[in-house]
């Protein structure tokens, strides 16, 4: 596998996102728009050390980053399969694993772009209060934390049609995002939801981001996400194998 081949694979997948109006709207414009709305309404000073908008960069930022990582590789695989492109690619010397890795890799800069756009919004509103190092560290943990979701997206992509995949992914993700505290602080959710939250990987991604922001321990969240990765990787592999039959 040469760097040139990987570059071509990633380039193709990036075009698949940025030239696809639906992908740009649902995985870029919409999350950033909602962030601007929420940060404008509730982003001011908080009881804690940083503004609410900065907290939202970790929590709603997790929503934006995971959306990209979950939707694009998943829908991409479902469509490639349906169109017959994946079958065409199977006679090329490039293994499927490279194509899948490229799909996930291509979603990373886009996801980072979403996080960066949200941050710029916060800066513009004067509610951005953390340092560059912490800001980058949050980006790092959100991107890493989105990987198990990318695998989940691939599992759906290998099982569902191109039309069904976005609906299925959103049906799984949206409830998990809200109950995991990505849309509003976990303390603001009903008691029962607060009890369920720690079972959700979305909760652990946003808590990881908040932990980095506030300097709190994050080991539990890392362990939970590693376990999630093992499960979604197995699901993706199983879905891939059954799609080839």
């Amino acid at each position: 596998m040469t760097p040139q081949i990987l570059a071509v694979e990633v380039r193709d997948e990036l075009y698949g996102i940025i030239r696809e109006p639906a992908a740009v709207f649902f995985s870029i414009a919409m999350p950033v728009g909602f962030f601007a709305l929420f940060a404008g309404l509730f982003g001011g000073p908080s009881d804690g050390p940083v503004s609410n908008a900065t907290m939202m960069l970790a929590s709603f930022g997790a929503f934006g980053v995971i959306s990209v990582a979950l939707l694009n590789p998943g829908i991409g695989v479902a469509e490639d399969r349906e169109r017959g492109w994946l079958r065409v690619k199977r006679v090329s010397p490039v293994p499927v694993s490279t194509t899948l890795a490229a799909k996930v890799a291509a979603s990373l800069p886009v996801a980072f772009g979403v996080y960066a756009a949200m941050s710029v919004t916060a800066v513009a509103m004067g509610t951005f209060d953390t340092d560059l190092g912490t800001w980058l560290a949050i980006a790092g943990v959100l991107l890493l934390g989105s990987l198990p979701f990318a695998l989940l997206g691939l599992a759906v992509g290998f099982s569902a049609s191109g039309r069904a995949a976005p609906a299925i992914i959103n049906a799984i993700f949206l409830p998990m995002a809200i109950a995991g505290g990505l849309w509003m602080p976990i303390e603001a959710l009903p008691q029962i939801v607060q009890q369920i939250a720690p079972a959700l990987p979305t909760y652990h991604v946003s808590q990881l981001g908040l932990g980095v922001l506030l300097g709190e321990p994050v080991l539990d969240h890392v362990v939970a996400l590693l376990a999630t990765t093992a499960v979604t990787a197995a699901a993706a592999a199983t879905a891939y194998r059954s799609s080839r039959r």
Partner: protein
Amino acid sequence: MADTVVNIAGLEHRYGTTQALRSVDLTVASGECVALLGPNGAGKTTLVNALTGVLQPTAGHVDIDGGDPRRAQTRMRLGVMHQIAGFPRTLKVTELVSGWAVRSGQPASAAAPVLAEVGLSDLAARRVDKLSGGQQQRLQLAMALVVDPTLLVLDEPTLGLDIDARRGFWRTIAEHRDRGVAVLLTTHQVEEAAAVADRVVVLSDGQVIASGHPAELTSRLADRTILARTALDGDALRALPGIVDITYEAGRLRATSRQAEATVRALLDADPTVSDLRVEGASLEEAVVSLTANAYEEVAA
């Protein structure tokens, strides 16, 4: 003897209870073009998939230049056109073809001359999903050629091409064959394939039922009708090589021959006054149809 590029022996494939291929043997040498003919469902695409590494056959041996097609390395210089293909709609023609070159270790710059060769230069900047069916076939041909192939495997490559485009297509295939590329193709354009193919292999119900040079196949397997005005009498005509039957139509000879070329040659030698000579008869297409029909009767019997 040219190098054997494709080597298939005892190839079997079963989909559940459907036996798609039964002990198929087939070789293709470099610089040789083999046309795989046969009715729908004969197993052509299954054979192509086994040869290109898409499918793991139930049994038998397949290699390309001695390598297992299931291994990526073996497919570096394999050019393929699929019966059914799809492309990502967000890529432009030139991006797709140059990317395909890079995946096979060729420079991205290899795309431009190949696009010119298949007549897609004007559409290089067009999105792949805006191409017509015939243009998509040409795109597939460009992808097959841009890997600098030693083997071209083409499954129904002329599907959706008009006559002009088909003519150009066959010319391109013949050129690459003449430069030493091994070609295995399936098609329903039997007569057009016969013009390019060095060998025709007829597949029916998963079995090879005939194989040979197109002319050999038609002459061996189908009688031809020779029409002529001649001074020779019945006995002299019956003594000509290949003659099966003679009749007269309005004073004109109508002879059925099993070896039309030999008959005509002998007829012209024996009677310099022959006029109004015409040879009609089974085309390769008719030969294939009659061959496969016989195969079905045998299976049914």
